């Protein structure tokens, strides 16, 4: 049943396939993020309560929603790598980690920037912000574990195990943080209760969410290809490739 997976496990095929996919992801990402951001930041109507400062959600919400999705993607490919012993999947997971961390950081910074005009303070121990902060720690743990191993084949496997352990823990952490914040917080500053968002705001937001997804995909593919080349530097096909590119 999983035979088709193994056919892409071969690094050379994975490299070529990701090379074919890359332009599509890159084009879609540029187009979607371009349209969504310009629409959201320039043309979308002003919010009657929050003024123009609400516009940061066109960056914040896509980043926040993709930070979790990237983690899931990373854990999934780590799982595939661990169970079916496919090294390409391990490398894909390792390639996603830093991107996920940056996206999470963007979500945190934009969240704090938004918090300043909304709550009058940069940081509140709001459940979502706290969970996002913990997610950033999980990403950083995986990245530094990966960086600590000299043998990168092992590094990817170790980081993969940690990603899977993390993914089991994420729902528990999220639930406990939400429960903790409902216990400790006056409920007055809860803000993002889903008020019916006008479609002029919703569409650019959705386009940007999709665009961020494509952008993460495109950057992951670039990093994944670099990772394959780095790990297979001594393989004949990589040498031929280097020769064709005119590298000594």
């Amino acid at each position, binding site marked *: 049943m999983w035979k088709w997976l193994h056919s892409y496990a071969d690094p050379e095929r994975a490299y070529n396939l990701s090379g074919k996919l890359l332009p599509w992801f890159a084009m879609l990402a540029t187009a979607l993020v371009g349209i969504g951001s310009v629409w959201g930041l320039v043309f979308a109507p002003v919010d009657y309560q929050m003024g123009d400062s609400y516009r940061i959600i066109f960056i914040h919400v896509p980043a926040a929603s993709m930070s979790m999705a990237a983690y899931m993607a990373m854990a999934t490919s780590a799982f595939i790598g661990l169970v079916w012993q496919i090294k390409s999947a391990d490398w894909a997971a390792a390639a996603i980690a830093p991107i996920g961390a940056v996206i999470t950081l963007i979500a945190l910074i934009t969240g704090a920037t938004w918090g300043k005009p909304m709550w009058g303070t940069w940081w509140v121990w709001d459940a979502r912000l706290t969970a996002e902060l913990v997610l950033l720690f*999980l990403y950083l743990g995986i990245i530094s*574990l990966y960086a*600590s191993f000299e043998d990168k084949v092992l590094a990817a496997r170790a980081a993969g195990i*940690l990603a899977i352990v993390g993914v089991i823990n994420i729902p528990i952490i999220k639930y406990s943080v939400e429960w903790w914040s409902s216990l400790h917080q006056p409920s007055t500053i809860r803000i993002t209760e889903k008020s019916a968002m006008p479609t002029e705001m919703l569409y650019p937001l959705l386009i940007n969410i999709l665009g961020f997804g494509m952008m993460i995909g495109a950057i992951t593919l670039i990093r994944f290809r670099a990772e394959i080349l780095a790990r297979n530097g001594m393989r004949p096909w990589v040498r031929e490739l280097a020769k064709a590119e005119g590298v000594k």
Partner: protein
Amino acid sequence: MKKGISFRQAFFTLLKRDLQIAIRHKGDIFNPLLFFILVVTLFPLGIGPEPQVLSRVAPGVIWVAALLASMLSLERLFKADFVDGSLEQMLLSPQPLPLMVLAKVLAHWILTGVPLILVAPLLAVLLHLDDNSYGALMATLALGTPVLSLLGAIGVALTVGLHKGGVLLSLLILPLYIPVLIFATSAIDASSLNLPYSGHLAIIGAMLVGSLILAPFAIGASLRVSTN
């Protein structure tokens, strides 16, 4: 020359060996305990000696100190075995690896977790913990510290082959400790208000069962990577 060791016998053989080694090496037991006591002692010096303030922060302080002490003591869990080759032999023994790992973690918890639980009431007195809360403190520590040992062992297993373990280890496992911390401290808070806290305990118990079942496999897989 027949092979007739049951899983239970293998488990206790390993448990007994680890306890025996630790008893001949007493520093491993006392240092984390001293660390625990010292960290707790620092808080009144940092915050000030008012009993109201101290009793308010006591559950959090004791639990955070317990997290750190547990993490520090865990660092040595697989290190000696890794250095002298016993770990390889454990991985190659015909006994199931998760079982062996569980024996090691249990031995470690007996040596470091139990003393921590025993000394906790003493520290609670120093921090003016609410009189109602002693039961909750002991119960959460009894259920929670094994979870810390099991989760922490995953991080230790991943880093045992690396030269710079310490700081990396804390980055790997402290985020995983957050749920235990939250539920344990709020159980103690609830008990100080005379509210029921059996629900909190049930959740920590569920975490214990979950990590007892899943963590040994993760630890085993991590050890195989580390000894590669």
